[in-house]
């Protein structure tokens, strides 16, 4: 990101664009990647409630996967899943 001059930024440290942290991808922190087994998933959405990073993707209110742009790979979703339909796999496997 190009750094702006003092004339270009709002005064007082104000940030005008809500939620622009979405432009900062935290997915590259990840060393383990969650993988969903859709067959097993019962859509209890526990993963959605406990994800610290809002990285559970819902489609029509149903669990449909992960947003790897932000998922830091903590593994809480896999650990808390009551039917164990999420497994954590080493990130190297996907490179």
């Amino acid at each position, binding site marked *: 990101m190009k750094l702006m001059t003092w004339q270009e930024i709002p005064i007082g440290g104000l940030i005008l664009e809500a939620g622009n942290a979405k432009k900062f991808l935290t997915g590259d922190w990840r060393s383990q990647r969650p993988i969903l087994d859709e067959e097993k998933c019962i859509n209890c959405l526990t993963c959605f409630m406990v994800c610290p990073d809002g990285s559970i993707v819902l489609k029509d209110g149903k669990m449909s996967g992960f947003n790897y742009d932000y998922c830091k790979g903590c593994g*809480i979703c896999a650990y808390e899943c009551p039917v164990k339909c999420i497994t954590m796999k080493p990130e190297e496997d996907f490179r």
Partner: protein
Amino acid sequence: MAKTEMKKKRKIDIMAEMPERLSSGHRLCAGCGASIAARQILRGTTDPVVISCATGCLEVASTIYPYTAWEVPFIHNAFENSAATISGVEAAFRSLKKQGKIPKNKKIKFVAFGGDGGTYDIGIQSLSGALERGHDFVYVCYDNEAYMNTGIQRSSATPFGAFTNTSPAGSCSFGKSQFRKDLTMICAAHHIPYAAQASIGYWQDLVKKAEKALAVEGPAFLLVLAPCPRGWRFPMEKTVEIGKLAVDTCFWPLYEIENGVFKLTKKIPDKKKKPITEWLKSQGRFKHLFEECNENVIEEIQQKIDEDWQRYLKTNGDKIF
């Protein structure tokens, strides 16, 4: 209408539809309990919210200039004044509304966040003042039981026996030698309409309490246990599990005080009450307690928990403030 569509929505479906107020892209640690707390609590209302936040993990990691993870108005002022800052914001809202500069029917929920250091310690005066004055706001203390943002130093929320960098275990020390301050009771003693203790381990309980706190008129207080993988020394996938274990061992009873009436929101039957060793074992910060010389420390912790728990059971349903 098809039968499936008639199906009543589960609470979690409603929660999933609520607006996300803390966006992805924040830089809290992987597995952080504080962000889970913030995401869950802010699902407690559909009204617009305005947030103040004390200096601490939640604040620094969510607002690294030029980025903000907040989808709602947010102000950070300093470490000890989250409650005083929201007092001013809320007073401004009342003033401008009274003058017709903000529409009469405009609703805003004011939420002040602070960690345990910013709440139990350096911010307690500002919090006490704001509660006593009766501002219409919810104060949320996300309690990770030490100054985590500055690198794990003891606070008055740090439990007895815990290692921190300023209460290290050593040949002459078993870690922190004082019990935690009972902050929820301190806040409830301000005769506020709602005060509660919750844990991210039990999200249904937490969300319910958040809804109640956000709905009452006047000050409300929520103390939320937010386990910290880094500071407590446990694997990051266990954050929620450890939040549950704290409750199941009665280390962290879930209760609320509504209009002065004390109520346990999760009763742990005697046969299900887990020994405190299970909770202590789960975290590296208590590792030293399992050395032979510290046996009595664990006994002392268990004894305190048992006494407190008996007291809570006895008080359940009583008007205590």
